[in-house]
């Protein structure tokens, strides 16, 4: 079996219904999708298309109403909270729109937080490489309030990668950044895929951001309406308009 084609995250016939009865909303409607190792996938879609819900379910933050999800060979829809927590700790990294750094910890401590929580020692070589990659060398002793938005988000990326997760989920990672910082951050994510073979799934509504990905998935009304090469920002926009 070739490494490049092995499936890391897989959703099969996933449906998610919020609420009950007449007021219920079908956020996902029978979505099946596979994410291979080492891929950079962008998920797009208009508001309410279910893209965030899909990501939450893929990451084990939310449970589908029906269907199954495997992550790194583990069926996660039936895991209890304890095992889900472990799974997140060991195999999943997150990057959020609003950075979500702990204000009381400095940049280095924030990066190391997932390892500290898991009670693991950081691998110094990996850490050095990581810090080098996110280019924060001189800001490591600063607290989040002393960092710019772009710097904060780079810390968040380093944090997501610190425990060498199988997959990183990024939820609108550039949503709170200006265009220059956005570009830097997306380039950083790209490098992580190219240099470390990191698998990344990114939810975004920014066509430019999506163009950094290898693959573009578009959702509308809880269904996948497009799944293919990402291409240039213009192509992405055209695809979105079509939806």
């Amino acid at each position, binding site marked *: 079996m070739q490494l490049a084609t092995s499936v890391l995250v897989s959703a099969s016939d996933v449906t998610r219904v919020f609420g009950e009865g007449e007021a219920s909303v079908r956020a996902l409607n029978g979505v099946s999708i596979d994410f291979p190792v080492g891929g950079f996938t962008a998920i797009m879609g208009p508001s309410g298309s279910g893209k965030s819900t899909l990501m939450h379910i893929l990451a084990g933050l939310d449970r589908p109403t029906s269907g199954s999800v495997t992550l790194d060979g583990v069926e996660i829809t039936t895991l209890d909270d304890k095992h889900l*927590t472990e799974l997140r700790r060991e195999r999943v990294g*997150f990057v959020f729109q609003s950075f*979500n750094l702990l204000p009381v910890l400095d940049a280095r401590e924030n990066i190391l937080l997932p390892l500290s929580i898991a009670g693991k020692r950081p691998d110094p070589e990996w850490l050095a490489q990581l810090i080098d990659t996110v280019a924060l060398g001189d800001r490591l002793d600063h607290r989040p309030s002393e960092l710019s938005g772009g710097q904060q988000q780079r810390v968040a990326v380093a944090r997501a990668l610190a425990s060498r997760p199988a997959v990183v989920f990024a939820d609108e990672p550039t949503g709170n950044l200006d265009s220059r910082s956005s570009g830097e951050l997306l380039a950083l994510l790209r490098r992580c895929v190219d240099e470390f073979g990191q698998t990344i799934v990114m939810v975004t509504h920014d066509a430019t951001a999506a163009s950094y990905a290898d693959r573009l998935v578009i959702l509308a009304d809880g269904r996948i309406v497009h799944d293919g090469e990402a291409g240039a920002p213009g192509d992405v926009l055209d695809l979105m308009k079509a939806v």
Partner: protein
Amino acid sequence: MRKVALRGLFARKLRLALTALAVALGVTLIAGTYVFTDTINRSFDRIFSESAKGTDASITPRQAIDTSDSGGTAPTVSRAVLDRVRRSPSVANAAGSVFDSGTVLGKDGERVGTRGAPNFIASLADQPRFDGFTVKQGRRPASPDEAAIDAGTADKEGFALGDRVALSADAPRKEYEIVGLTQIAGVDSFGGTTVVTLTLDEALRMLGKRGFDQVQASARPGVTPLQLRDELRAALGRAVDVRTGQEEAREQSLDIRDSLGFLTTALLAFAGISLFVGAFIIFNTFSITVAQRMREFALLRTMGASRGQIMRSVIAEGFVIGVLGSLAGLAMGIAVAPGLRALFRAVGVDLPSSGNVIATRTIVVALAVGTLVSVVAGLAPAIRATRVSPMVALHEGAAPSLARPSRRLSLLGGLTLAVGIGLMSVGLFGSLSTNAALSFMGAGASATFLGVALFSSLLVRPLAAIVGRPLEAMFGVTGRLARENTMRQPGRTAVTAAALMIGVALVTFASIFAAGARDSIASAVDDNLRSAFVVQNVDGFSSYSPNVLAAVAQVDGVGSVSGIRFSQARVRGIDGDTAVTGVQPDTFAALYRVDGEEHVRALAPGSVVIGKGFAQDHGLRTGRRLQLTTPSGRRVTVAITGIVDDKGGLTGGVILDRGQLERDFGERKDAFGLVGLASGADADTVQPAIERVLEDRFPEADVLTAQEFKDDISGQVNQLLGLIYALLALAIIVSLFGIVNTLVLSITERTRELGLLRAIGTTRRQVRRVVRYEAVITSLIGALIGAVLGVILAVLFTRPLEDFPLSIPVVTLVVLLIAAGIAGVLAAVLPARRASKLNVLDALAHE
């Protein structure tokens, strides 16, 4: 506007409940105290007025000085007075009666009732109409070998008609057959005391009295009690007091109220402490919620709400919390009043109660104080709420930033602290009356606590580092986060910790004070007691029959015996009453060390020696004459023949010959007996021999070695300390609610962070740990500051006391710190559970 405030308030039910509870607990103690003491007072009122029902006029000995508290010999009304009363044309009937303390032995041979619950021996009046009681079962005693006992005691001790009960008082132990069970005012218990009634002659013999404690008279038809009273006053002169029956009952009630008044004051002081702590919590809760709701206030401002409206809405919240808390406190106070009684009974003070008395005053004070406290505590946050700029509403919500300790607040804290210490110094060193001094010290202590609380936001960081480090070393990142969390809002942590600090400081203070008291008594005993044994009443403080020491002197192996008696005198030119001690000059100095013992040895009737302190206070020298007024109103002039220094503190200001004390002061009973061994006698055999004699004849007295005597006093100090601890526990519980409240509010604030922690793989358990350690660190900060402050206060307060040994009870302090840590864990249970139950997705989406 009001709607917004109230909706907001009730939307956060847990916070509302916790904050209201902080007020409620203090109010509980206020209401409980009033209900408790009102109930006691009413019980006594009923007992006295019921027992005076058949009496139109009451004749009692006039006392120049009230010695009833010292438990000594009370003056009596002579038989000649009774004869004169009987001869009065307006009197239909008159009878004399006695009522005084004695010792009643239970079936187990031990004194009835816990230590301190009085035992009384009373006489029947020879006219049943004058009896203060009714016979519930059986009949009145008719012979010298018969007795009636109150039905309450009979029930508790398992006495039934036909059983035998042993008494001892002035006369040696004697057994009586129980022929009647008595009631008073329809209640079995005589106000928690034990009363055994004998025939008049037998009671006189038992109590060693020649006269009566009271003569009661009834008026002939057509003569009103007032007329009878006035006639008897004219006939009997100034040696006795004549009152109508109801006046007498009121007089007795007032006496009891007076002696219980300090109890009310003390309990209210503890209630005040709890409320003070509660005020901290309300202040903190409001500060936090106001800070969290700044955007809401800003939004209201953009919509045109005035600053006044914002302020009123916050104050309205404080008012509602105060009213709700006070109402809850009132209800709980009424419920716990019997619990207070149980608490006092546990330390040996059995007080009567019959149903709860809920006076209007109780309700008004409880509601007013509780509401006022919470409105005042919410004032500063309310003012802060008005300062918000409407612009805040337009900005994107920034994550709560780190707050630096405010320099201005710390400065204010330092000033308040200085004012507090100044006030305390005035109270301590200024020459003020006791009440004024206590008020100054109380106000000073409050200001000190407030100042430390404001100032301590500067201490939070270093202290959190000190107490947090071990946690961090042991538990890694959870400990680290907990420590950082306590340091984020130092002011908030400081006020939360300060609430606990107050309780801990007071506990520390009390324990140091008590340890010092124990040590100083122990060293006084060690340094000054030369006798082998001390004889004292089994209750530890009452005086006892002079026959006791006479009997002890007869025991083989006993060398010398020296009795010590206490009384009071008014000294001309000196305000207030002066303690007078009667000693046996020939034996005293051999058994007890005072500097200047040759003066004591040379004491003769007409001469006195005075204590060094008394001499200094009033500028007295050897050779001066003193004019003393004794309790019976007699005036005697004595010459000062020497000044002694009694480092043991056994004797009072004026020391005179015991014979003179008996003759002029009417004091027949000994308070202490010092017993020396005959040469060659062995203490280990003599003590049991004395014990046998006492058990056999005078079970009211005990013989103790110096060590036992010290232990006995330590025991009394410890009991009092236990009571103080129990009452301070309330303040500490209130402060724990403060920790719970602060944590709950902080967690709401950090919802997103908690969501993030969970998202990146923190287990629920780890989240709980972070919260728990934060609580532990906060409470340890409070306990540390409190312990240090308590030590400082104790040093300050004991400085004016000469020779007060100051020892820091390290073990107690360590136990206190550990207990504070455990308390922190307990306080964290609920907030930690809340934090760990947060849904990850909801938490991440939380604004």
